[in-house]
């Protein structure tokens, strides 16, 4: 998720990286050593090639999205300000308007709300699995939560549409579709991310810290609240941020329950939309190179930048947890 594959390229090449053996076949008397060098060289070449390919792919994706996404601002007369703060999205009108604030608002509010719902659930589940009932947690709860990660998003959307939306419609004023429905569906979807990362963090806590606390007469709850949670906080937040990133990028399930009205709603139970929904809904109806099409690429660019931001936050948190 945070592109660990690109790391090997940053490593200083080993000094044994031998251009000497690279060209000519090894002379016969050297025998075994030459064979080893050749193998070494072949292995390294393969790894470098894969990494290079990967870097090229990532780079091309970014360049492509950026070039398309920047076109409306550079040569088609749309201002960045209008896109980020405009409230009206009417790309096919006589005076086309490209205000994406409602989508930004929808994406952020559903993702954050989903994280607010899922974080306590996920962290408590992780505490239960590591501190309270490790046996039961490992055999039942953990597989159950991991199963959630494998359910296709269309199924989440379907369940949301047939269960959550009617429930919200009957319980609260409004049509049922909207940010709340989207957030609830997303919270279940990101629960595995948050729980898995929290569980790993809690398991990797040195046993000595907990023992030290118990040995001073702390209860289990005191130990959790004063030692375990503060010590693992950066890692727990990493899980939450990755969850938000996942929620931010999720398109289908949210699109099915949010209502897809391009305006900022007045309540959590009113139709709204997100960046991803508007892209999937509109892209089939535009022609390549048109202003409308390029504007959708601008939205994709915003999504990409947000992802960078999330990865950056996660990196900062990781650094903090290392220097604790």
């Amino acid at each position: 998720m945070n592109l660990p594959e690109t790391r090997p390229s940053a490593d200083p090449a080993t000094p044994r990286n031998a251009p000497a053996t690279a060209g000519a076949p090894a002379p016969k008397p050297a025998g075994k050593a030459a064979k080893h060098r050749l193998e070494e060289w072949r292995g390294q070449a393969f790894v470098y090639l894969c990494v290079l390919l990967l870097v090229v792919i990532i780079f091309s994706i970014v360049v492509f999205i950026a070039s398309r996404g920047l076109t409306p601002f550079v040569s088609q007369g749309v201002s960045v300000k209008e896109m980020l703060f405009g409230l009206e999205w009417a790309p096919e009108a006589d005076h086309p308007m490209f205000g994406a604030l409602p989508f930004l608002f929808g994406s952020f509010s559903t993702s954050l709300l989903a994280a607010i719902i899922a974080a306590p659930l996920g962290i408590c589940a992780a505490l239960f699995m590591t501190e309270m009932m490790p046996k039961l947690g490992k055999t039942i709860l953990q597989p159950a939560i991991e199963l959630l990660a494998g359910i296709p998003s269309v199924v989440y959307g379907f369940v949301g549409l047939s269960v959550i939306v009617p429930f919200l419609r009957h319980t609260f004023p409004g049509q049922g579709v909207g940010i709340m429905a989207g957030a609830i569906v997303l919270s279940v979807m990101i629960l595995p991310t948050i729980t898995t990362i929290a569980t790993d963090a809690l398991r990797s806590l040195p046993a000595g810290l907990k023992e030290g606390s118990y040995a001073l007469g702390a209860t289990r709850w005191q130990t959790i609240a004063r030692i375990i949670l503060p010590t693992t906080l950066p890692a727990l937040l990493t899980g939450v941020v990755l969850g938000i990133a996942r929620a931010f990028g999720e398109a289908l399930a949210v699109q099915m329950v949010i209502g897809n009205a391009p305006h900022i709603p007045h309540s959590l139970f009113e139709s709204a939309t997100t960046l991803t929904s508007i892209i999937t809904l509109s892209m089939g109806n535009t022609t390549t190179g048109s202003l409308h099409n390029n504007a959708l690429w601008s939205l994709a660019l915003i999504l990409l930048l947000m992802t960078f931001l999330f990865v950056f936050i996660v990196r900062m948190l990781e650094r903090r947890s290392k220097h604790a």
Partner: protein
Amino acid sequence: MIIEIERLQLYYSAFHALKNVNLSIPENRVTAFIGPSGCGKSTLLRTLNRMNDTIPGVRIEGEVTIQGRNIYGSETEVEFLRKRVGMVFQQPNPFPKSIYDNVAYGPRLHGVTKKAELDGIVERSLRSASLWQEVKDVLKKSAWSLSGGQQQRLCIARALAVEPEILLMDESTSALDPISTTKIEELTRELREKYTIVMVTHNMHQAARISDRTVFFLNGEVVEASDTEALFRSPVDQRTEDYISGRFG
């Protein structure tokens, strides 16, 4: 006798780790448990503050009384017991907090909240652990910035801060360099004025240097328990003699 252990049996699931241990531990003395690895000395130490409770599959029979009260009785509160019976571990394990907060951790758990009172406890505890002079100007710094030996003395200070009567030391110098070890040994001698100290050590010389009484364990049993001088000069049991003369272990 501050601690009396009677007919103690301890099982880790099917493994019989402590076999019918009977032992008295005197007040304000340093008692050392020695013996080869896996002989049960650490296990016995951890029954004294019930740290074994957290290990799944542990079963304990018999009685351990501290000042006349059975610590495995139903009326004993584990948290209160551990406040009275402090523990220092093999690896220094300061919390990832400031030096001050490490020492104040215990008192805060037990309800001390006033800043002035905490300040007093922190200074007194750090002085008792002969660490005050080294850290008095950096109390806000992370405990993890200290050296291993300082961290271990911090852990002693942290244990003393809740005013225990008994201090258990589980091979507390084995992860330290010789100079830090000497400091902790000297400290142990000083602390026995006010505390009863029970230490586990795999280093016989350490036991001979600093303990008043020595208990020799083998395969989960107490082989011999007597005054340190007597035990090392004229052991009664052949197995003790073999061990202290370096013939095994």
